[in-house]
């Protein structure tokens, strides 16, 4: 496993569990023993996650990434020590941000549910391998993340138009579509990852799947 294996879900899960800070460690940049250089992906993901944390009102400094080799024990302790001091200074999760426990939990849960959607929409940027560490700074912008959540799409099957043909149902990668032959299909919003596979699959002559952009959701936090 490479640090590039670290998933958005891991970081958010840790915060959901109530930890005050999350530290991600990777090998030194440009010193990959393979050709993977996955630590750049880890960096990219951490920077995106910081923007997401900021979006939901959390202090992004609660998340940190550093790169070091297995031989740098002293650096490891120094970096962790620094981070612990920083998190202590920020204060307890939620409290320091002026958020109640439930509010924080619901926001983190909402973001966690959108992870598949984020991976779809930001696929290219998440896969990008930029030239240098500095190039990742500001690669994901706050505006972009705000827009991402503002313009979240959702899909809905119009029961009037649905021909119950099973095409979208079979296509759905997460089995979020209920129904059967001659039984109008329905998308389970709890399971849906908003990938749009059903929208693409529904024959144009039926046009039963509707795409709705910017549905009011729990992440409209701007006001």
């Amino acid at each position: 496993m490479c640090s590039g294996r670290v998933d958005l879900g891991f970081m958010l899960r840790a915060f959901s569990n109530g930890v005050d800070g999350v530290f991600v460690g990777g090998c030194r940049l440009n010193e990959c023993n393979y050709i993977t250089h996955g630590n750049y992906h880890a960096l990219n993901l951490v920077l995106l996650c910081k923007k997401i944390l900021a979006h939901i009102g959390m202090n992004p400094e609660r998340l940190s990434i550093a790169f070091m080799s297995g031989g740098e024990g002293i650096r490891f302790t120094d970096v962790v020590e620094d981070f612990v001091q920083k998190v202590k200074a920020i204060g307890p999760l939620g409290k320091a941000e002026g958020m109640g426990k439930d509010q924080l939990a619901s926001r983190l849960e909402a973001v966690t549910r959108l992870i598949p959607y984020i991976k779809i929409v930001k696929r290219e940027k998440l896969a990008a391998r930029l030239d240098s560490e500095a190039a990742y700074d500001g690669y994901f912008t706050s505006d972009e993340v705000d827009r991402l959540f503002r313009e979240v799409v959702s899909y809905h099957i119009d029961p009037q138009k649905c021909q119950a043909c099973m095409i979208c149902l079979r296509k759905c990668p997460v089995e979020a579509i209920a129904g059967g032959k001659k039984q109008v299909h329905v998308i389970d919003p709890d399971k849906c990852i908003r990938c749009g596979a059903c929208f693409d699959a529904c024959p144009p002559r039926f046009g039963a799947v509707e795409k709705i952009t910017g549905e009011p959701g729990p992440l409209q936090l701007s006001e």
Partner: protein
Amino acid sequence: MDSVEGEAGDFSVTLIKKPRYVIEGKCTGCTTCVEYCPVEYPDQFNQDISSNKAVHIYFAQAIPLIAYIDDSCLYLKEKKCRICEGVCKNDAIDLHQTPQKVNLNVAAILLSPGFDVFDPTVGGEYGYGKMQNVVTSMDYERLLCATGPYEGEIRRASDKRHPHNIAWIQCAGSRRVTPGNNSYCSSVCCTYTQKQVILTKDHDEAVACTIFHNDIRSYGKGFEVFFQRAEQLPGIRFIRSFASIAREIPESGNVIVKYATPADGVKEEEFDLVVLSVGLNPPADAKELEKKFGIELTAHGFCKTRPSNPMETTRPGIFVSGAFQGPMDIPESVYTASGAGAQCGERLDHRRGKLTRAKLYPPERDVSTEEPRIGVFVCHCGTNIGRVVDVPSTVEYALTLPYVVHAQEQLFSCATNSAKEITDMIKEKGLNRVVVAACSPRTLEPLFRETLREGGINQYFTDMANIREHCSWCHSKEKEAATRKAKDITRMSVARTAALEPLQEFDLPVNKAALVVGGGVAGMTCALSIADQGHEVYLLEKDADLGGTARRIHFTLDGQDIQAYLRDLVRKVYRHPSIHVYTGATITEATGYVGNFVTTVTSERGRTQITHGAAVIAVGAEEYRPAEYLYGEDDRVVTHLELGERIARADEKVIHATGIAMIQCVGCRNEDRNYCSRVCCSHAVKNALKLKAINPDMDVSILFRDMRTYGFNEDYYREASNQGVRFIRWEPDGKPRVEVAKADGRDVLRVIVTDPILDREIAIDADLLALAAAVIPSAGAQEISRFFKVPVGPDGFFQEAHVKLRPVEFAADGVFLCGMAHYPKHIPEAINQAYGAAGRVLTLLSHDIVTVSGSVCEVTEKKCMGCGACISVCTYGAIEFRETRQGKKAVVNPVICKGDGLCNAVCPTGAIILKHFTDEALLSQIDAAIEEPAEAH
């Protein structure tokens, strides 16, 4: 080494093994003895800057990682002390060991004694040993290192302060003919200095760094860019000047360096610290080696080798690798080691595998229907863990965790008896999963996997909780907190382990044949070595004849006749019964993976499908066709290869020329090609010397940017200069111009260049102009790279798996690399690398099977939405789309997958998973980081 008798194929060698005073089989490297040892003496590994104990481990990565006792031991000197015996819990100390005579019967001998660092006290001119703040680059290397004398802080000896203004003096002991110095270039110092500068700036951005140099010799792969990286850092000055140590300022300990620049003349400047970039000497015991092994040395004291085989000493059956050949960098050392190994293999092939025994394991128990039954083994690591972490209480705690049915402490979990204890417990308690709470999995995980196999359960049912590096070592002063943390780490590990699944490593058969792509010197040498060890080799050459670039080279700097050598090589290849040559060959398709490739080739023999277990990419490189300096417009402008050919055929215009000019760095070290072609400086010197031999009165001028005649070629550079070859330096902003002109009624090419020392333009009239045209990647490189799914680097040359550690392998298993396909190189270097690749190929082909890791990625087809995110992040090309009735679906080839899991992190639906590091296992571990309140259970 005491003595060698006999001959190649049957040497009898006598060794004297010095006592270690520590029983290797018993010592676990816990270092308790080191801590209690009362004798402090200078730490040799840290250049005597800090101190170590009489009993110690040589350095942090020593192999084996166990202690030894030095002559400074009180018992050995005065029969006192014996504290180490008392504190060693494993009874590993044996102060009564005596030297052992070991007799070996071997077929071949490989010498790799390395080099010794130049000693700057010899001439006394560098102030080293007299001025505290003059250090060698080796001293400085240790100062920079986290395991160094000041734990990675750069401090100077006089006042232990951090220096803020450091100077490096290049070529300390090198490129100088004065007694005590070496006339050759040490090859590695320019780049290691740049590395030290970069690391210094990493330590402290504010440090001013000044490098006094004679030429920047960034001739290696990636070195030019590395130099630019160093040069562009703030506060860095590279000053081209000879520099000497003038004096020390007694009050501050600062050092005055004297140097000269064209603009300011002679100057003196004060520095806090001066680093001497010391060069490479032959090993101190070279003379002794010469006598004992019956080999010969060169005038410089390095090992004498044959030009056609730089790894062969003058005595048959004795080979040499590494810097005993001459100054070289890590990658070359690594591939000469592999190459010399291959040549030993040629002599031992008939006995290959005769002494190996297959290990037998009990059948694997099927635990699929069982609940997890976890055993936790908490290691004391002598006192490394035990004296900080309360091990018994951690054991007690482990027993309260879900699925844990057994927990115990162990003194050293890695000791043989402890492994036995684990396998016994697996059987006795019916354990189906094991957590070892000890150290980092980095070194010992394979050992514990082995232990599980011996216990009859799947080897992937284990996890290591690192309570040493991540706990006891960093919390030695907070015992209670450390114990709590050890419990947390163990709890997390138990949670993950419960979610682990059994994985199968699978064995692939290995096709015993090799494919070598490219029939130049590298390809042929590699093919011969593989074929000599009993393997069929298919050798592909795109041209009608074998030979590659060497066909255009007639002699080397050392005077070797390349055409005669080549004829001999080609004859050997054609006569070899196991080498099948395909000329006029083009690859049309290549599929498969390690051990099982299928490559389709069209050649003069028609269309052939070749099955092979390994492939070697040796497609060479090409000469750049210049677009500058009137090349192609005026037939008096030629490249160095063309000049060499003209010299060889005694071309009238060359022989009777009054003046010949040469311009270096044509088509490289520029924006288009930001690399150095490595060979051209020596190439120019070679042609210049040849011209001077033909007509000593001929005016030969070489217009260069940096003369990069590294290694022993420096002697020829000096020789050329002595013979009156003019060396004129130019800088990129004062690039030479070439005009057609008349001088005294003679038609000439007029080369105009700005001399940076004179700071004005000078003109040179020549009858012929030779251009050092860049060496550029082979035109077919891109296509080959696609066929074999191996990368090319930013310069278009093939990119090895690891620049230093795996210089002849690709990240894709089963595909290897040598010769100029990797980077421009001289013929002896290509031969070194070709044998090196052969050695790696043999390591693969000598096995009947290859084992593929179980921890690879896998796609759940139903969940795959065919978005291709996984494919775009996989650097190995292990994932492809497959058409199904539900559209495109990703599929992983587990043989190619390296198990990094990048795909897993970008997959939106969780369709692709990295086995052993699944979301389920890792999230369980994350959840367990927080101790759940009792009611949550």
